[in-house]
């Protein structure tokens, strides 16, 4: 029942915050959000699961109730955690709390609604990572859209309406495609499955696979579904060329929304890829390895190139997310322990680092009210600490050793280099060039904005950032370094959940 408690606290908290007066909403929401943090940390310590949730591993905190009987198919409330989902849940709760605190400064209207929505997102995200029944999972998956749409739309920047609707519709279309594909797969599996529970579907896929549907051969159907699912998730990740909603959404979103968007929402896509494509379709993964690896490399390099061309700090970080997610895809397609495990590790790591970056940029924006590289210079002179953290975050993004980013990327590279598919070392080498480009655009941006002689046209004096803006970033920095120095904090449980995937479920 712990997971239900987790979700319930967030939901109730959301409702409470909605009706709370604006003055106290921020503090209240933060206080409430500490409960999920505590709970999830307790889950983390009390975690007793092993193996992969979809491949009859033993789930932690499982609970399973029948919900709806749809024809011969059962839909049930089915949640549980394994080594892959638990770290992401913890990431979610922590990032939410920090995001809430980091929005005390920038959010100055309709606070109660704002914080309510943030808590609502938290609830949905936890659900996404914990749900093990397709319908339940899909409900949470879609439920994230509404609050994010409103967060961007109401508290966003000048082009917020365009960005919000683009994000909303684009990702929803992808979800529909993915949904249809998966349903077709379930029907294709015929009598092998009698519910939408993911473990059952996975089991059916690994033992026998689909019999075929609307006239398609079983294997053909599997391939079609694989591709459709991949596209559906690729939009969320996002993978080039389905990425164009991301920069708009990020640039327009308020800082905390960006933090959650980059920190956790993108991980939904990669998480789903791992859970569906890379767990249920080992044969297709093998068959499509080379094209997917190519896509990954393109995402890394192309995304970095785009970031290089930007002058808006947030846009730079946004495009760099595209690049970083490319690494995740590379790690997944490597289909080795370090590859897939590293990809999962990168989900967490990138969540922390990009969250830190967006917070730092946000803090600077709060003071300068501009994000354009060309508008400012030498900010370090006025806000040394904030800039210090920004620089630290930037180096974390560049994969500086002893920070989580390096661990993640190194795992991925190592895992991908020894992967089985053709030209794996070549693809890896190409993708690794991202570490040079990322250094390029981040250092360029730093040099031009925070260093050099102080220059900024304002009619007021730029002052140091308040403590409650800095505190969350220190926490994140601490976590990043902790994971960089001791990746086994989570990497062990991740690999424990990843191994069954690679063994195709037969343990």
């Amino acid at each position, binding site marked *: 029942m712990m997971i239900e408690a987790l979700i319930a606290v967030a939901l109730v908290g959301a409702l409470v915050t909605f009706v709370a007066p604006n003055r106290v909403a921020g503090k209240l929401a933060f206080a409430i959000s500490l409960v999920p943090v505590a709970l999830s940390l307790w889950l983390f310590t009390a975690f007793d699961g092993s193996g992969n949730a979809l491949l009859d591993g033993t789930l932690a905190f499982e609970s399973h109730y029948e919900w709806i009987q749809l024809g011969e198919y059962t839909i049930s409330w089915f949640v549980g955690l394994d080594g892959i989902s638990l770290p992401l849940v913890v990431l979610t709760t922590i990032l939410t709390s920090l995001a809430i605190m980091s929005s005390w400064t920038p959010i100055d209207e309709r606070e109660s609604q704002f914080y309510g929505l943030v808590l609502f997102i938290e609830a949905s995200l936890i659900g996404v990572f914990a749900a093990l029944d397709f319908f339940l999972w899909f409900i949470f998956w879609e439920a994230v859209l509404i609050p994010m749409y409103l967060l961007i739309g109401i508290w966003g920047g000048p082009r917020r309406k365009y960005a919000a609707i683009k994000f909303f519709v684009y990702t929803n279309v992808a979800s529909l495609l993915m949904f249809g594909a998966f349903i077709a797969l379930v029907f294709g599996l015929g009598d092998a499955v009698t519910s939408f529970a993911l473990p059952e579907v996975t089991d059916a896929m690994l033992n026998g696979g689909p019999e075929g549907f609307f006239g398609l051969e079983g294997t053909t159907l599997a391939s079609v579904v694989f591709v459709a699912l991949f596209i559906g998730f690729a939009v969320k990740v996002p993978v080039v060329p389905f990425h*164009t909603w991301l920069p708009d959404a990020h640039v327009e979103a308020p800082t905390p929304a960006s933090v959650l968007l980059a920190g956790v929402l993108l991980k939904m896509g990669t998480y789903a890829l791992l859970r569906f494509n890379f767990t249920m379709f080992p044969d297709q993964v093998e068959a499509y390895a080379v094209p997917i690896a190519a896509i990954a490399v393109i995402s890394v390099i192309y995304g970095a*190139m785009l970031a290089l061309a930007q002058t808006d700090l947030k846009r730079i970080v946004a495009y760099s997310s595209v690049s970083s997610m490319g690494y995740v895809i590379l790690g997944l397609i490597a289909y080795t322990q370090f590859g897939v495990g590293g990809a999962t590790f990168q989900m967490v790591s990138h969540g922390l680092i990009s969250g830190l970056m967006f917070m730092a940029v946000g803090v600077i924006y709060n003071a300068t009210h501009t994000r354009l590289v060309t508008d400012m210079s030498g900010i370090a002179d006025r806000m040394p600490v904030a800039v210090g953290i920004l620089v630290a975050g930037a180096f974390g993004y560049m994969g500086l*050793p002893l920070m989580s980013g390096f661990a993640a990327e190194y795992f991925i*590279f190592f*895992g991908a280099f*020894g992967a089985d598919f053709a030209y794996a070392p070549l693809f890896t080498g190409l993708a*690794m060039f991202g*570490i040079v480009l990322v250094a390029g655009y981040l250092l360029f941006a730093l040099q031009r904005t925070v260093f050099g002689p102080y220059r900024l046209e304002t009619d007021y004096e730029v002052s140091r950032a308040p403590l409650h803006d800095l505190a969350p970033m220190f926490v994140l920095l601490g976590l990043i370094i902790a994971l960089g120095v001791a*990746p086994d904090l989570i990497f062990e449980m991740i690999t424990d959940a990843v191994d069954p995937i690679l063994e195709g479920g037969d343990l």
Partner: protein
Amino acid sequence: MEGAFSYAPAIAAFPLVAFVVALAFGKWLPKKGAIPGIAATAASLLFSLWMLVAVASGETYHETLYEWTAGEAASEVGADGIAFSFGLLIDPLSALMLVIVSLVAFLVHVFSLGYMNAEGETGLPRYYAGLGLFTFSMLAFVYADNLLMAFMFFELVGLCSYLLIGFWFRTRSAPSAAKKAFLVTRFGDYFFLIGVVAIAATFGTLQFAGDQSFVAAAETAIDDGATLFGFDAETWVTITGLLVLGGVLGKSAQFPFHTWLPDAMEGPTTVSALIHAATMVAAGVYLVARMFGYYALSPTALAIIAFVGGFTALFAATMGVVKDDIKQVLAYSTISQYGYMMLGLGVGGYVAGVFHLMNHAFFKALLFLGAGAVIILMHHEQDMWKMGGLKDKAPVTYWTFLAGALALAGIIPFSGFWSKDEILYDAIIVGLEEPVILAAYAMGLVAVFFTGFYTFRMVFLTFHGEPRSEAAEDPHPVGWSVKFPLIVLGLLALVAGVANLAPVAKLANVDITFLEHWLDGEYGAIEGLTYGAYGELLAYETGVIGTEQQTVLIAAGLSLLLAFSGAGLAWKLYNAPEPVAHKERLGSAGTVVEDNYYQDEYQVWLAEGVTLPLARVADRFDQTVIDGLVNGVSSASLFSSSWVKRIQTGIVTNYAALIVAGFVALLLGLGLYGGWF
């Protein structure tokens, strides 16, 4: 002595603590964090000496202290698990290097008291924190026992250089130089990282030493004639070795990655001293020495190392000739000197290379700190043409600087001569068999001349002649904290050569090549990491001119001759009361050299003339084509929507008509489908 090693981690830990203290509390400390830094480096120095003694007493230390992570990974040679760990490897080489690093770091800290504090700089906590982190990273790198750990701290060293070079971030140039330093070295590290990954994926281990080391694994693989990633073992070893070499070239500022180093002079001179003498730049060469066994397996890689080294030595030396900024001259001399070390290692002169690394650490630190002193004297003027006549006004600075200069120029009996001569000797004896090496040797030899020239040009312009500016008229005095390090290093520059008087040994047939014995593990070493062991791996033929003695004499004589002639020419041209520039005599060649052979230009062009426009094109493509497609879909559907709703004309009779029409259409359609007509 066994107990000693259990304290080894402290060597790196002290500076780390100093870093934290300075960063957190430096603002409130006296001297803004200098004290903890000095204390920490002093402690590190003592412990390092202790390690040295311990090794001398025959002990070595190779221990895995902390497992970073481990997992399954089917490696190319079969091992199906791999552990990435942090461990210490203390053998003669690393023990020696520990002492060098901690000594120089200590002296630099002390010097900083005079150079930074006394000059009333701001942001000192940041400065000392940077120094602390820098020292920590370098020390940890030095006694890392595996390639991944080495890479990690290698990167951290890069970070520290970025922070310290960009110390004066309020200027325009410093941040730019810092960025350049990090980017260029990062570019090298890109290859390094591929190399690390490749080696790990190939051999399933990254250990430097022991039977479990990748070196051993590579050796067996070559003996078994295994095929790795589709190449035969030796080729693959060469490839991976060269990939790792990328990082080395970047950090040690070898051609073509040398461009960042002169710009790095934007940092405080003390930082330059640290970077050039003992930490960042040294790290590259040290890495080659550290995994020398691996390179020894691949003659191709070694030859490339040697050639690049020789070329860089000459190439940089020529550029040093025409610089007016005292620090610039030193910068190019650094590049050139590391070229020598690469040459030495490339020809298998493991001892020679390390020997020169050591000597260079001392005299280059000396020269930079001397230059720093001069800069203090000159009220932060760096143009040598504005100096002159400091000889009498600052005797300590002068004599110590002179010692360093003599060592750099390789004038007997100063330390530089012995090591450089040994490198050239090792080069020629191999060169007699291998034309490529011979070419490398020739370049190295010619470079000696230029070295002598620019060194003494610098000395004469700075200290001799008449003062050429009022700053030079009455220099700013320097305190003990400046003089003390100079004196220490000055002495070392003079006597350090004693460590390995190879020529003397060969000629007089006396056994005084202590360093060689040291590195050959006569006092204690780890299996396979000795000069002897490397020697067996090496595939080089060596030859002699006449007898060995004659060869020694010829080699030494040649280099001395060139050094002296270079120095002499400088004396003739610049040792005048009112020296004048002679660049125009060089003509067009001079301008080419002054512009550093347009190296920066083409690299900047690569960055800003190629990559950036490419990025812009990609951005435009993204905005127009890809995003345009997305927006196109929506606008298309909205357009069709505005068109569709027009059929609702509002006139009810039209509705009736449309209903009937629609009904008839349905009727006909289904009728045809059902085959009514």
